[in-house]
C-alpha cells in the first residue's frame, strides 16, 4: 500500500483518527451492503453509492458544530451517516419500508432529519444549491452563527442556478459553504468533456467568493479546509467554496456499466489513494492502534450494517393509507 501523504497534521489525536476510521468504514460497508440489497431486488429504482468519497463528508463533519445544517444531492447516504442519522432508518428507507426516515415514501434520494439538521436528499441536479443558501439565509436572518454545508458535484457545477446562488450568497453575506465534490465524472461525462474551466472553485472569483481546492482523499486535509471555511462563514464574511477532489469507485448509479473510464483508473485510485487505507496506515504507523484493534472496529461496523440490513428487511412496507398522508401540513 503506497500512501503518498504522511500525516498532514501532527496535532491529531489517536481518538480522532480512530473516529474518522470508524465513520468512513461505516459508510463504505453500508454502501456495499446497499449494493448487495439492490442486487437482490430489495432496493429499487435509482441507488447512488458514495464508495470512494467517504473522506469528504467525514472530514467536513469534523469541522461542524451543533446547529450547522447540511444539504446535498441524491448521492446522500454518506452525508446522512456522517451527521449521525441512524443506519437502520436510512437502510429501511432504501428498501421502502415503514421504518425508513421518510416512512418509505422518499427512497434513496429523498431523506431528511430535522433533528440532525439534514435537509435532503434532492434529485434535481443543482437544485440543492439555492436551497442551501436559503437555509443559510434563515440563520443569518435569525442572527445565529450556524453555517450550512451545501454539497454538489462537478456535474451540478455547470447548472445556472449555482451561479445565481453565488451572486446572492455573496451579495447578502450568507454563511454557506459550497462544497463541490469533484469526483471527476458527471454520470459518464468527465469534467474535461464538460468544461474548459481549469478549476471549478475559481469560478467563485467572478462573484468575489473565496475558495480553494482540497485533497478529498485525505480526511485530515478536508477537515483542515473545512475549519478554515467554517471560521470564514461564522465571522460573517459570507460564503466560501471548497472544491474537494475525490473519486467514486462505483458507477453513477447501480445501473451504470461504467464504460467511460478504464478499470485500471479505478484500481489505481483504490490502491494508491484510498481514504480509509490512508487513515489505517496513519493509525498503524503512529502505533495508535494494532491490527487487532482495527479488526475489532471492522467487526463492530459489520454488525451495525448487518443490523441495519436486517431491520430494513423486517420493517413492514408502509400502510396503504400512507399514500394519502403528508401531502399537506
Amino acid at each position, binding site marked *: 500500500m503506497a500512501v503518498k501523504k504522511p500525516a498532514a497534521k501532527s496535532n491529531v489525536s489517536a481518538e480522532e483518527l480512530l473516529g474518522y476510521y470508524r465513520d468512513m468504514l461505516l459508510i463504505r460497508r453500508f454502501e456495499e451492503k446497499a449494493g448487495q440489497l439492490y442486487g437482490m431486488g430489495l432496493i429499487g429504482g435509482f441507488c447512488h453509492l458514495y464508495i470512494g468519497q467517504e473522506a469528504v463528508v467525514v472530514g467536513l463533519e469534523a469541522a461542524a458544530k451543533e446547529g450547522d445544517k447540511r444539504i446535498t444531492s441524491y448521492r446522500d447516504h454518506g452525508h446522512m451517516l456522517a451527521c449521525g442519522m441512524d443506519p437502520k432508518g436510512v437502510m429501511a428507507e432504501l428498501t421502502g419500508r415503514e421504518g425508513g426516515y*421518510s416512512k*418509505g415514501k422518499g427512497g434513496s434520494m429523498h431523506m431528511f432529519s430535522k433533528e440532525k439538521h439534514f435537509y*435532503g436528499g434532492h434529485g434535481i441536479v443543482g*437544485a440543492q444549491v439555492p436551497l*442551501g443558501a436559503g437555509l443559510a439565509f434563515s440563520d443569518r*436572518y435569525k442572527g445565529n452563527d450556524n453555517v450550512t454545508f451545501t454539497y454538489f458535484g462537478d456535474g451540478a457545477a455547470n447548472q445556472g442556478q449555482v451561479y445565481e446562488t453565488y451572486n446572492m450568497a455573496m451579495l447578502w453575506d450568507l454563511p454557506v459553504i459550497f462544497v463541490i465534490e469533484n469526483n471527476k465524472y458527471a454520470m459518464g461525462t468527465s469534467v474535461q468533456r464538460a468544461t474548459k474551466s481549469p478549476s471549478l472553485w475559481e469560478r467563485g472569483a467572478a462573484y468575489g467568493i473565496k475558495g480553494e481546492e482540497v485533497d478529498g482523499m485525505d480526511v485530515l486535509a478536508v477537515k483542515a479546509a473545512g475549519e478554515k471555511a467554517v471560521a470564514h462563514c461564522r465571522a460573517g464574511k459570507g460564503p466560501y467554496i471548497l472544491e474537494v477532489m475525490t473519486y467514486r469507485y462505483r458507477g453513477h448509479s447501480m445501473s451504470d456499466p461504467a464504460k467511460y473510464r478504464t478499470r485500471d483508473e479505478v484500481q489505481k485510485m483504490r490502491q494508491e489513494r484510498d481514504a480509509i487505507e490512508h487513515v489505517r496506515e496513519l493509525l498503524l504507523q503512529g502505533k495508535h492502534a494494532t491490527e487487532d484493534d482495527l479488526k475489532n472496529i471492522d467487526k463492530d461496523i459489520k454488525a451495525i450494517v448487518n443490523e441495519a440490513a436486517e431491520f430494513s428487511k423486517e420493517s413492514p412496507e408502509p400502510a396503504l393509507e400512507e399514500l394519502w398522508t403528508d401531502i399537506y*401540513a
Partner: protein
Amino acid sequence: MATEILMPALSPTMEEGTLAKWLVKEGDTVASGDIIAEIETDKATMEFEAVDEGVIGKILVEAGTEGVKVNTPIAILVAEGEDVPAEGAKAETAPAPAALNDSEGKLAAPASAAPAPAAPKADTSPDWPEGTAMKTQTVREALRDAMAEEMRSSDDVFVMGEEVAEYQGAYKITQGLLDEFGAKRVIDTPITEHGFAGIGVGAAFGGLRPIVEFMTFNFAMQAIDHIINSAAKTLYMSGGQMGCPIVFRGPNGAAARVGAQHSQCYAAWYAQIPGLKVVMPYSAADAKGLLKQAIRDPNPVIFLENEILYGRSFDVPVLDDFTIPFGKAKIWREGTDVTIVSFGIGMTYALEAAERLAKDGISAEVIDLRTIRPMDTDAILASVMKTNRLITVEEGFPQGSVGNYITSVVMERAFDYLDAPVINLAGKDVPMPYAANLEKLALVTTDEVVEAARKVTYR
C-alpha cells in the same frame, strides 16, 4: 457457512439477464469489491462484484447462460477450508425477496371516488360578522395591508423579489413596506427567479415564512422546478418531517397588449400539483383575507393576482384581523336557471353576463371559486343540482383547463342533474397576439358568457 450468490438485479427494470462471463473459477479466493462476473442486461454489460469474502465453492450457472432470472443462485461462496454443501443441502440464502411482493392489497380509494357522499351543500356562512363596517379599497391596497399586518404579527415573515423594496414594487403592491419594516425584511433581489425562488424555499425549510413576489408569474416558469419539486413535494418525500410554509405571489394572466410571453394564466398548471394550494382572488376583501390566510398556511401557496384588477375598488371589512378560509367558494349572485363558475378576472365577465341575462329573464347563479386548490366542489355541485346547467369561465388555455376538471367532477357526481352539456369558456387556443383587435378575440368575453347561457338554457 456457505452462502449462495444470487443473480443480481442491475437496473430498476431488470428481471433476467445473461451470465456473460465468469472472472473467477471454483477455488478462487475473493474479497468484497472483487469483480467476479460480467452480466448482460437489456441495456448494457455490467460487472458484478463480490459483496463478501470467501472462496468460490461451486459455480452453479455456466458462463453464456441466457435468461437467468434475478435471484437465481449462480454460485456458492464458502469460508476458507469449508466444503461445498452436498446437493440438496440448503446453503444460507441471502434474504427472501418474497418479502417484496406481500402487498397485493387494494389501494385506499382516492377521495374523489369515495362511496356516495351526502348531498353536497354550499357553505354560505358569512366571511365576517354581519354589520361589520366596510371601507372602499383597491385590490392593490388590500394586498399591501395583508402583508403589512402579517409582517407586524410575525418577525418570521419577510418579502423578497425584484423591485419590491426601494422601487416600492413594480406594480406598487409593496408600497411603504420598506419604510416600515426595513431592508432586512423587504429584500430587493437581482433578476434571478430560479435562484431566489430556491433561496426562498430553503429559508422556509429553515423555519422562516417567506413571501416571494414574482414581478409576473410568467417569470416564475424559470423557477417552476423549485415551486414544484422543492416546495410542493418535500413534506411528502420527508414522511411529514419537513414542510415549506411559503407564498409565491404576483400578477398572473393577460394584462393588456403585452404579447404572448407576458400574457398567460397559470391557474390550471399549479392546480395540478398535490402539495400546492392555489389561490386566485377577484375582490379586494378576498385578496386581503386570502393573502393573510396564505401567509399563515404551513404549506406552499401560489397566489395568483391580476394586473387589471389591482386598481379596482371593492368594499373591504374594517377589522383588526380577518382571514378567508381556503376551499370555500363565494356565491356572488344567487340564481335558478344556470350556474356560472369562475375565479379571478373571469368573475368580471361572469357578473356582467349575469346582469344582462337577468334583464332577459334568465336567472344566473355566479360562483367565485377563490381557491382553485383546494376547490369547493360542493358549492358547484349544490348549485348545479339546483340550476341543472353549468358554464365555467376562465382566461387560461382551453385544453386541460380548470373548467375541464370541474366538468369531470360534475359528470361523475351530478350527471343526472344536467339538462344541457357543460360549456367551458376559456382563452382561445393560441399564443396571445399583440394587435388590439386580435387580443380582444383571444380573450374570453362577456358576450361569450351570455351566448353560452342562452345555449344551455335553450333560449
